[in-house]
Structure formats: C-alpha cells, structure tokens
C-alpha cells in the first residue's frame, strides 16, 4: 500500500513536470515566433490620467535619492502627477531626506507612518486614501524608472478593460557578481519571454507589485490590499481577474532594479515570495476555478501560475520519494519505458524548458556571452527548491496558526558601492 502511494506520487510529479515543461516551451515558442501583441504606445496624444506614484520605504536612505531623482526626470504633466514616498517606520534618515524633497518639490508629498502595522500592503492602503490621482503607480525604493516610464504605464488605462499594468524589470547591477548575473538571466526569461508570451496569448500577465499601476477607485472599492498577505502583487492580479478586469504587460516600459548581491539576501527574498504567493494560492485557487469572469485559457494559466511556488515543494517531496523508493528496492519504477519517461521528464524539468526560455530571452535581447552561464543555473534549482519549500511551509503555518505576517525588507547594496567609490576617489 505504502509503495503504491509512493509510486503514484512519483507519477504525479512526472506529470506535473511535463505540464510545466510544455508551458515553458509554449511561451518560448510563442515569444520567439508568434505575432506580438503590441502595447498602447501610439496613443500618447490623448489626455493622460492623473497619477499618484507611491514608493514604499523602510530605512531607504541608501537608495531613495536614485528613485526620486529618476522620477523627477520623468516626462509627465506636473499638474497630473504627485509622488508619495511612504516612509514606513524608518529609523534612519529617510524622514529627513523626504522632508527636504518636499520642501523643494511640492508634488512630492511624503507619508510618514509611525504605527505598529508596518508593511507594504498597509502602507499602500494608507497612501491610497490621501492620493489625488486616479491611477496609482508603484515603484520600490531601489528602482530607477526611465524618463518615459510614467507615460508608458499610465497610457494603458485609456483602455476601460484594464485594471492593472505591469512593466519590465531589469537589474542594473548585473555585473556586480555571479549572483546578479544569474538573476539577470532569470529576469530576462521571466519578462521578455514569459510575461510577453502570456500577454500575447491573452492569459495572465502578472502584476509584480512594482513598475506597475492600477486603478485607485477599483482597489479601494475592493477594500484595498490585504495586510495579511505578503504577496500583495499576486493577490491584486487574481483579485482583478476574478472580478473580470485585465492585467496587461508593457514590455517596452523598462525599469531598472537592484538585484540582491548575496545568496543569503536572495534566499530570504525567494522564501518571502514563496510564502506570499502560496498564501494567495490557498485563497484564490477555488475562486479561479469557479469564477465566471475568466475564460478557460485564463483559468488554466491562472491555476498554473498560482501553483508556481508550490511546485518546487512537490518536487522536493518527489526527490524524497525517489530516495525512499530506492532504499526500499523499488527502483523498477524506472525500468523499461519508465526509464525513458523519467529521463525525458527529468530533462525537461531539470529545467531544460526554463533554460530554453532564458536562451530565447537572451536572443531577443541580443545579450552576448551570458548564455555561457546557463549551466550554473542548474545548481540554483536546488537553491530555489530549498528556499521555496521553506516559504511553502511558512504559508501553511500561517493558515494553521493564523499568525500575523511581518514584512521583511530586502537589503540594499547601492550605497555601499558609492562609499567604496568615494573612498577610491
């Protein structure tokens, strides 16, 4: 009986891997050879909506200059623009620095929060209440938006079906070390291929919580962000889709972010994402299946996207399963045709399909040389499997214990560089 269950689980893992491998190949093929669905770039002449740019900050003295200076250079009618940096219980010089900006620029209106419910969702909720714009655009504090970014994102809301828009994220500290180079590869596959293909296929482009925007009234009507959910971005995506709104992807709206520069920081970031994403999985899986507001294509992609941060946990169990089967002498599951099937699937899951996706992304971006790093991403598979599994277990513990989640900020590295440069000079 036990062995049967173990074998059935192995078959389940194999099927799961096949499904995700096919998904990756479809996305890569569509992006490389399919007709591309264009964004709304050509309707700039229309009256642009009023926007409020929200920037959640917690001890961001190292990087806040970069994002604010970049935003000040952005082309957008100043009468229709306001910037609200959300100083969320900072203990460094963030407050003073933001107040200095406010003195110089009236449309930069910092919101200082000194309350126990710290966190991005709670901060965004408070800021939305004072925001004057119809559209909310969100950037993280370590981002550096390009000059036309605000126009690019805001223009999407001329389409009455659009509830939210997401731009493309590109790391700017790519050449810092091996980790940042590898993250750059993953980002390239994830945005240039994955997000654009989902936009092409009219499935579910995902709102990523930064370099994106949404309709303020809509979000307020829906009760604002849920402070108990860590992945407020994923939750927004599913909340909008299940209510019949669309999220669209603006591949041309490129924004630069700071990628984590140490494995420890990256591990914590991934674990937090996995925890938040799986919280959304538990809340929205049923709703996605039952809602009449999503078509079958959106439902299929929506379910697969919801499960993205659960699959590595299933694979980890699969690996454990294979160890147990091995020591029980039940490796005949791999005999004959099973060998073919197992190896075939293992190849594709062994992330060949994601490699194909990343390779395609690098080709489309014209990035030379970096493909030679692809084999190193193989080891990341175990790194992600470990950290995502921990995040998955965190999410389950959240449900069982009903504990309150606490927001953890990703460590910044920018200032350290500057200091080093200053020292060198």
């Amino acid at each position, binding site marked *: 009986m036990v062995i049967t269950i173990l074998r059935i689980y192995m078959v389940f893992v194999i099927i799961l891997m096949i499904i995700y491998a096919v998904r990756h190949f479809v996305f890569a093929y569509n992006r490389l050879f399919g007709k*591309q669905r264009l964004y709304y770039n050509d309707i700039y002449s229309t009256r642009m909506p009023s926007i409020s740019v929200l920037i959640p900050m917690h001890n961001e003295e190292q990087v806040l200059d970069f994002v604010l200076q970049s935003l000040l250079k952005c082309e957008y009618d100043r009468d229709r623009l306001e910037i609200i940096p959300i100083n969320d219980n900072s203990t460094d010089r963030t407050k003073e620095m933001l107040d200095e900006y406010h003195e110089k620029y009236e449309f930069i209106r910092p919101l200082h929060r000194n309350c126990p419910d710290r966190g991005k969702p709670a901060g965004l909720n408070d800021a939305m209440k004072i925001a004057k714009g119809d559209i909310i655009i969100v950037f993280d504090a370590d981002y550096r938006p390009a000059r036309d970014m605000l126009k690019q994102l805001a223009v999407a809301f001329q389409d009455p079906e659009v509830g939210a828009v997401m731009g493309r994220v590109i790391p700017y500290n790519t050449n810092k070390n091996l980790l940042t180079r590898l993250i750059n590869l993953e980002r390239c596959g994830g945005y240039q291929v994955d997000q654009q293909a989902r936009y092409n296929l009219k499935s579910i482009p995902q709102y990523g919580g930064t370099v994106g925007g949404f309709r303020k009234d809509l979000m307020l009507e829906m009760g604002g962000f849920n402070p108990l959910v860590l992945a407020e971005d994923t939750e927004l995506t599913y909340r909008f889709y299940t209510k019949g709104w669309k999220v669209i992807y603006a591949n041309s709206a490129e924004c630069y972010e700071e990628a984590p520069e140490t*494995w420890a920081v990256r591990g914590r970031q991934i674990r937090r994402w996995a925890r938040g994403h799986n919280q959304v999985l538990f809340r929205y899986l049923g709703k996605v299946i039952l809602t009449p507001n999503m078509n079958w294509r959106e439902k299929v992609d929506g379910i697969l996207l919801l499960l993205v941060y659960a699959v590595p946990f299933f694979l980890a169990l699969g690996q454990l399963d*294979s160890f147990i089967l091995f020591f029980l*002498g039940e490796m005949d599951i791999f005999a*004959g045709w099973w060998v*073919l099937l197992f190896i075939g699937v293992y190849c594709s899951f062994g992330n060949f399909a994601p490699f194909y996706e990343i390779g395609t992304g690098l080709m489309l971006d*014209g990035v030379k040389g970096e493909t030679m790093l692809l*084999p190193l991403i*193989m080891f990341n598979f175990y790194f992600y499997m470990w950290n995502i599994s921990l995040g998955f277990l965190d999410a389950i513990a959240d449900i069982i214990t009903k504990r309150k989640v606490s927001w953890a900020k990703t460590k910044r590295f920018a200032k350290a560089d500057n200091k080093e440069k200053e020292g060198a000079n």
Partner: protein
Amino acid sequence: MENKEKKVIYYSRTYRHLKINTAGSILYFCLLVLPVLILFIFNMNHITHFMSKCAVNVLGKLYPGIPLYIRKDNFSILGKMEFVELPTVYPSTAFCVINFIIVLLLVFFCCTGSRKGRPVSIYMTIMLVVHIINCIYFIFAANYFPYNAFQYSNLYIKQQIGIWLTFIVMMGLVTAIQGSKALVWKILSFFSVLAYSFLFGFARYILFLYIIQEFSIIYMALMFFAFGPFFDFLYLVGIYGFFMDKVIKFYESAKGKGAWRWS
C-alpha cells in the same frame, strides 16, 4: 561643425521576433535528427556491447582475478542492451562508520560559514544526506540492501540509454527550431552533445564500476543520485549555452539582423 548624427541606430528589442522556418526545421529534423535516432535505436545493442567490452577490458586489467561477464537484457520494445556482470563487494562495518563520520563532517562543512545556503552547498548537503542514510543502512541492515553490482550495472545502462534517446530528440528539436540561419552551429552543437554524451557515458560507466569494485557498493546511491543525470544536464545545458551564444552573435551581426521582424 560637430556631427550630431547617431552613428549606431539600435534595434528595438521589445517586440522583435523571428519568422519560423517550418520547412527548414522539418527537413533538418527528418534528414538529420531522425536518421541519428533510428541509427541509435538499431545499434543500441552494439553500442552497449562496445561499452561493456571497454569496461571489461579496463576492469580486467585492474582486477585480473575477478569474473567479468557481458550479459544481455531487453530494453523495453526497443531491443536488446548489454551490460557487465561483476561480483558485488560489500563494505565492512568499519568502512561504513568511517564513511558516516567523514560525510557527517562534510555536511557540517557545507552548512556552516560562508558556504551556508549557497546553491552548491545545498546540492551537496542533499546528496551527502543520501549517503548518510546509505551508511546507516549498511551499518545496521547490510543484508537487506536491495541491490547488488549486477543490478546496478543493469540500471546504469538503462538510464544511460534513456539519456541518450532523450538528448538526441531534445537537442534535435531545439536546434531545429532555434536559429534557423546558423546551420553550421546547429549541426555542430547537435553532434557535440551526442559525442560528449557518449564519451561521458562510457567513461562514467567504467569509473562507477571501478568504484563499486574497489570501494564497495556503498557508493551506489551517491553515484546514482549525485553524479547521474544531473551531470548529463550540465553539459547539455553548457553546449546549448554555447550554441545560443553563436546564434545570438549571428542574429546581432550585419548579416543576421535582417531576419528580425516587428509584427
């Protein structure tokens, strides 16, 4: 007067894509990949025979006294395969305990200091834990270990055939679809994967048989999980990365840029 004209006009990468060369891809697959695949399936017996013979020759020289035989088995409906039968060497309890202690120290090494949480450390820790379980198995229940050298050798060949078959199809498909204009690099990459795969598969088989003969079957699980298909993917992805680098350079060159389309 200063010339302010742009010297380079960058192509927009946002929505560019390529036109699929369906006929070319099908032709490539049918004329190159399919014949190689058929050739492999019909020669599976000869290939594994040659592989086993090489292993017998090497092991025969290293261990002149031991009985080594080449056995036949069915590989599903695809035909026969051959593998080496060799005597099983079981580890002594002392050897298992020494292994256990060393591996425990290695796990501690991987999980501490700056190595903690790094991808290679996580990978090594998982694999070393498998070896720890293996050591415990041999210390307390060696008689119940479900495999011997004969079964391991058989399993290795089956797994290797699976890898070869999959790699032919996968690399064939990938090179057929991607980079239709870089034909030379496509063919070169396809055969590079196959050549490396065969050489690596041969060498690893002989090495694994040598290890279980020299140091006992205690290393079977470690070799199977840690140095099995995972290492095949490493070179597959490595050669794919090399191929893509050439393709990218081609499509960014003056000759290749014309292939890009914008809807």
